[in-house]
């Protein structure tokens, strides 16, 4: 019998198991030990492992990231949590100038087994400063690994892999994914760096959805089914190292690619995927493509504009349909309630 967990509980369980497994794992960040426990993902851990291993911090993202690096140098395995990815911008110096470079800059003498958890926000007035999907900033920097699991299964397995990794890993969560439930085996397993997953096999178009956009791609696949278009959906899971081979193999078969970023497109993950394929598939030109992602503006709070800011299953399906048909068709599927997500409406 399969066990079902929410994304929240999957993260909590992975943390719990890793902390039980390795006394060096410590967990901290603003509010990890407060009553809301980072939306439940750290619930109970302070009680179980003590305030030395699980603690809230001052509002000092820069120093706390630096301290995490220091702990890692001392042999601990810190997990530093940011309730929003936007706040990681305060820790860029430590992440890019120190964490990413320590192993190399010191000729291999040191290493930084650090996990930085951060959550992308969406909906309900999050607005410009609480909604950014800034993972391309970290993909850009050699020495960092980046992962953005979209399922509870991957959330658990990737977090375990991240904690055991001897390098700094940016672990990117998405607030809306917290409401997802899915199969999560009990006990130990890892979803190791560098392997994408074909979530749904298909023949005519490849949909690559990153982070929460994976969910929208899965829904788009269902809409496309209704009009007899067969879409393959791929979840890259790890963005650095990126399994471009799996995507390439798919596009070689389908001849069409839509990559949907959960962030802005310029110099984004989609840009990297398209550019890599353009390089790698020079022997097989003529494949069709489309990048989708956030509108190139800060995210507006008002729902009338926020709805237009994000790609969604229907706009993705429409784009894929056009790509398959080779010209704009003016088709937009009617919204299906059974595919609709629970709207996110607080608690903030």
């Amino acid at each position, binding site marked *: 019998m399969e066990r079902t967990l929410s994304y929240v509980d999957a993260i909590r369980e992975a943390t719990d198991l890793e902390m039980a497994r390795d006394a060096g794992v410590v967990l901290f960040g603003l509010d990890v030990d407060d*009553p809301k426990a980072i939306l439940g993902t750290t619930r109970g851990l302070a009680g179980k492992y003590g305030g030395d291993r699980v603690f809230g911090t001052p509002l*000092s993202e820069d120093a706390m990231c630096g301290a995490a690096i220091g702990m890692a140098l001392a042999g601990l395995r810190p997990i530093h949590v940011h309730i929003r990815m936007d706040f990681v911008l305060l820790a860029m110096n430590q992440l890019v100038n120190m964490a990413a470079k320590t192993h190399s800059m010191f000729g291999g003498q040191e290493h930084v087994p650090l996990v930085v958890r951060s959550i992308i926000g969406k909906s309900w007035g999050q607005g*410009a400063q609480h909604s950014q999907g800034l993972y391309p900033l970290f993909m850009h920097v050699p020495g960092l690994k980046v992962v953005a699991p979209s399922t509870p299964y991957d959330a658990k397995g990737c977090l375990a892999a991240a904690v055991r990794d001897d390098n700094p890993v940016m672990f990117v969560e998405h607030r809306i994914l917290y409401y997802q439930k899915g199969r999560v085996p009990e006990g130990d397993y890892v979803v190791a760096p560098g392997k994408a997953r074909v979530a749904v096999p298909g023949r005519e178009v490849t949909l690559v959805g990153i982070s929460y956009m994976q969910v929208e791609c899965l829904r788009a696949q269902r809409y496309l089914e209704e009009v007899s278009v067969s879409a393959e959906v791929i979840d890259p899971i790890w963005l650095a190292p990126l399994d471009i081979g799996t995507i390439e193999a798919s596009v070689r078969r389908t001849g069409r690619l839509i990559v949907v970023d959960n962030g802005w497109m310029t110099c984004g993950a989609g840009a990297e995927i398209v550019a890599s394929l353009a390089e790698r598939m020079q022997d097989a030109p003529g494949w069709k493509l489309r990048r989708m992602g956030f509108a190139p503006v800060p995210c507006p709070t008002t729902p009338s504009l926020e709805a237009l800011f994000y790609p969604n299953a229907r706009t993705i399906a429409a784009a894929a349909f056009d790509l398959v048909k080779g010209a704009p068709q003016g088709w937009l599927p009617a919204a299906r309630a059974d595919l609709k997500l629970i709207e996110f409406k607080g608690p903030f």
Partner: protein
Amino acid sequence: MKRDELELTVRLYRSLRRIRRVEEEIVRVYPSDSIKSPVHLSIGQEAVATGVCEALEPRDVVFGSYRGHAMYLAKGGSLPRMIAELYGKADGCARGKGGSMHLVDVERGVMGTSAVVGTTIPNAVGYAYALKHRRENRIAVSFHGDGATEEGVFAESLNFAALKQLPILFVCENNGYAIHTHQSRRQATLDICTRVRAYGIPAETIEDGDVFRIFQAARAAAAAVRSGSPGPRYIECITSRWLEHVGPGEDFELGFRSREETEAWRKNDQVARLGGMLPAPQRSVIDEAIEAEIAEAFAFAEASPFPPAGELLMHLYR
């Protein structure tokens, strides 16, 4: 009461009551889903913004945080445009793009609020630099929480403001908490003012939330800052947040603090206190005007349209 005392009391009461009632109305309306953004309410903390802004000139500017309704209103920001902003409407002060956390009214000197803790502190400092540079007789005010003082940018900002002797008044609204975490679990010593004085900035704490004392302290500090010497001043106002960190409810059931903790503050409620100081008829006139204004503002917000699709890509570059 002497006449000017009475006038002051009236002004302070009106501001306190107005903020309180606006936020109570937000609480009331909230479940209807008309408000399209998270709200960080100031109920219980009104005396700080009210007392400080009463000490300012209209041409002075303020910068604040996501918990910015009180500051925005006390400084004279447009109420209908604020409510419309919370409703995500085109007539909102940020045309619906900002929401509750990003209030602005440049004409009234409300220069903006930010959802990232501490970020507007150096912005206020920079504004003060411009004022000094242009020898304008205005001052900048930075409103921030106790939590914001833990961010490195706070220390950097104090140093630069003091180094350049800038016309800035820092106001800490110390409600004892950052979300659910008490100051004592975040700060090695609770004495923010000692840290501030270490930069050569005069600093004082008003412990009891008395709006008159806050006003007087702010008036003295603003006068000193405005005269250009000796540079910045710092006021820490101890206060109490009665509702949850974000949202319209309470948070006592979470267990991180007790209702009793806020009791003393509720007994000391400045809205009730100043209301009680006014003759009942005068008070009714004020209250009724406030109710009318609020009703109008919410109606204005209701009536305003959502921004059309074409606005999405606007306002990226000027």
